């Protein structure tokens, strides 16, 4: 079987890329070893956030954010998206200074989506935060979406665009040929394509190594938690911190999803993650300090997912220098969800040899070469 583009990985990055390519008339096949959204794409904390991102990602995040408003038209589902302003809190004057600087930096780049919030504004947005909070940085356009719904909607839209989506199909062999690539799947079939896209998330390093193009992507198991319904506690505003690990998502039904950097031990080979209860303790301590009213809240459940990370915490997006025709879109380091629609667009552009809407130099796959 032949296609123009073979995409390995049926997560949102793979599907977003596939949709854009199919719309450009390309014949695309996606190989998904499980089901779309099985890992990070479908099981993240649902944050659709520009705020607090690495400045290298900001231009992409701002463009992506616009695309989130049009999902119903573009992929046929609103993805459960709604606006929940994201407020990053400063717990000391030094932290506040960092936030002020951040606002200035962004302004100098031409962005005004993150605005310094004085104490009064912090209290207006989030009346229940602790007294020691000195201020914050607000992003009024950030929001939340349902990750599983989003992943499924992307996969469905890809299929609707005539992308061939092969589920429960693992790529067990990938080879470079004279005119592109050849992959062999767990069902024993072979597929050929002129170009190949690596959207394999936590497995991106391994997959890429199959083609002789090692990438320093390593797997982590972000650990999310959710409380029972605490209506009014977050007042619809999601929170982040400046100096400590914590992200609190104000879910519509009143429960609070906790994310922001907690990790559990895992075994990628066996696809097994052990939820580390210490993460719950750590998060609970910080949560009750930031929102004393949460003492009576309950931790209802934790969940985890495999995610691919890179040392510098920004993704690898671009064509491999070692293997021409191989395009990476991976290593999103636990914040790729919001970026997906924009990444799909730019990757589809470089795959067909167009200039991308935004320069991808910061995400070059070869940026780690020779770096220890």
């Amino acid at each position, binding site marked *: 079987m032949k296609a123009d583009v073979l995409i390995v990985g049926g997560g949102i990055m793979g599907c977003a890329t596939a949709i854009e390519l199919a719309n450009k008339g390309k014949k695309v096949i996606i190989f998904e070893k499980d089901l779309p959204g099985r890992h990070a794409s479908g099981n993240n904390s649902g944050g659709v956030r520009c705020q607090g991102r690495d400045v290298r990602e900001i231009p992409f995040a701002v463009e992506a954010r616009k695309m989130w408003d049009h999902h119903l038209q573009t992929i046929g589902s609103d993805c459960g998206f709604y606006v929940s302003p994201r407020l990053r809190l400063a717990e000391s004057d030094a932290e506040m200074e960092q936030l002020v600087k951040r606002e200035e930096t962004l302004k100098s780049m031409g962005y005004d989506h993150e605005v310094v919030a004085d104490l009064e504004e912090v209290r207006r947005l989030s009346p229940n935060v602790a007294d020691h909070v000195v201020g914050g940085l607000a992003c009024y356009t950030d929001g939340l979406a349902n990750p599983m719904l989003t992943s499924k909607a992307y996969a469905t839209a890809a299929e609707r665009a005539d992308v061939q989506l092969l589920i429960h199909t693992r790529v067990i062999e990938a080879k470079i040929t004279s005119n592109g690539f050849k992959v062999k799947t767990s069902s024993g079939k072979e597929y050929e394509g002129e170009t190949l896209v690596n959207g394999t998330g936590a497995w991106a390093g391994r997959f890429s190594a199959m083609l002789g193009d090692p990438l320093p992507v390593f797997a982590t198991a972000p650990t999310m938690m959710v409380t*029972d319904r605490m209506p009014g506690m977050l007042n619809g505003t999601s929170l982040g911190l400046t100096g400590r690990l914590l992200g609190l998502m104000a879910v519509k039904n009143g429960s609070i999803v906790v994310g922001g950097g907690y990790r559990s031990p895992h075994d990628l080979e066996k696809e097994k993650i052990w939820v580390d209860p210490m993460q719950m303790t750590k998060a609970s301590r910080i949560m009750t300090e930031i929102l004393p009213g949460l003492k009576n809240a309950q931790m209802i459940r*934790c969940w985890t997912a495999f995610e691919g990370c890179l040392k510098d915490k920004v993704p690898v997006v671009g064509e491999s220098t070692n293997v021409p025709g191989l395009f990476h879109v991976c290593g999103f380091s636990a914040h790729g969800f919001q970026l997906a629609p924009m990444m799909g667009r730019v990757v589809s552009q470089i795959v067909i040899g167009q200039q991308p809407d935004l320069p991808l130099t910061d995400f070059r796959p070869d940026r780690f070469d020779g770096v220890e």
Partner: protein
Amino acid sequence: MKHKYDVIVIGAGPAGLACSAELADKGLDVAILDEQAAPGGQIYRNITAASEKQLSILGEDYAEGKNVVKEFEMASPDYLPQALVWQAEANGDVFLSHNRASRKISADYIVISTGAMERPVPFPGWTLPGVMTCGGMSNLFKDSSLSPKEPVVLAGSGPLLWLVAEHLFALDAPVAAILDTTPLGQILPAMKHLPKALKRFGYMMKGVKMIADVYRTAMKRKAPIHRNVKDLKAIGEQRLESVSATRGSKEVSYDATTLLVSEGVIPNTSLVRQIGCDHTWDPIQRYWHPDVQEDGRTNLPAVFVAGDGHFVHGAKSAELKGRLTGLTIAREMNRLSKEEYQTLTTPVRRELETELLPRPFIDALYAPRPHLYKMPESTLVCRCEGVTAGQIRDLVQDGLTDHNEIKAIIRCGMGPCQGRMCGSAVHELIVEESGIAPDKARQHRLRPPIKPVSLQELANAELGDSNES
């Protein structure tokens, strides 16, 4: 309570009690943790403090619990009542909440003997106050000596229905009707297991006598018993006011303030699933149960499962399985020689074998009926999150057949009970709508904490060394 034990037993029903007694008796350092305030599990609930009246109503099978508890008390393992285990790991770590404080204790082996629960079957009105399970009623009587004083309807299928009916009659509760939902069509297929079951003639006759007695009393008290009943509905505004059902083409309806339902008993698998035991689908009783060998071993070397939490076989079998598991771990920990192990386990295995003889007959006769999950679209399936059967069916028709994906999209199973109440129903709805074989449809994942824990408690918890790798 110490930090480290040889064995931690979770659940103090017949299996856990017998298991921990065996282990302690063999000189092992054993902790036994239980949610309830007193030993006995559901079946022997409150056995240590039961009144004369309770004992006389509940009969000799209940009183048997005294012997089990006595042996347990003599062996005196480290017993912690009112302890809620919210996470356990295959390396022997157990995280528990007790007295509003959470902590970690560890052991070389974990025995999970968390027993069984009633199969939750959604039907219209099942969330109304006044509707409860037969087992729930039984518990109310066992630990609090309550019984209904206003019209009560019993509905469902299986031994528990008749047992509770018998108790309610003995308590002079105003039974308005008994609605037996066992399809007549299930009698014939069960018959092939009858000869084996009759090898335990006494036991079988006890059951027959119980049902006959209920029929006789019901007739005396003018409480109708309807068989082959379908389409059960609980009706009321703020609480239960009446119960209706169909019988053939006829509708029957009774005013009642209590409706007791029982659609069989399934293993309570929350903890075995969270810890990572492999599971198998039982096509007759239609439930998932952990893969457990007779001696309690699972796919996880340090984790054993004993009792009805493995497969629902009843109190006596649970006790025997607990005993066997205890002896096996004692052997594993070199407290018994090979010969001693043989000598001690042979009679237990034999007794268990006899005990299990009637099970195929009972399991086939009281198998979940074919239309059990054909509830109307508007029926609430997930009580915690308010998700209806229609919402679930719609998603399956859209092509979603993975329980976890459905859960992630419409939240069924995401509330505090973590799918204990809706899990079986969602699974059956997926199977029915998609045509996927029930053993191929994935179970939903159970995540720690398997029961909610307050943030305050977690914040104050000293969980010792983290198992971070």
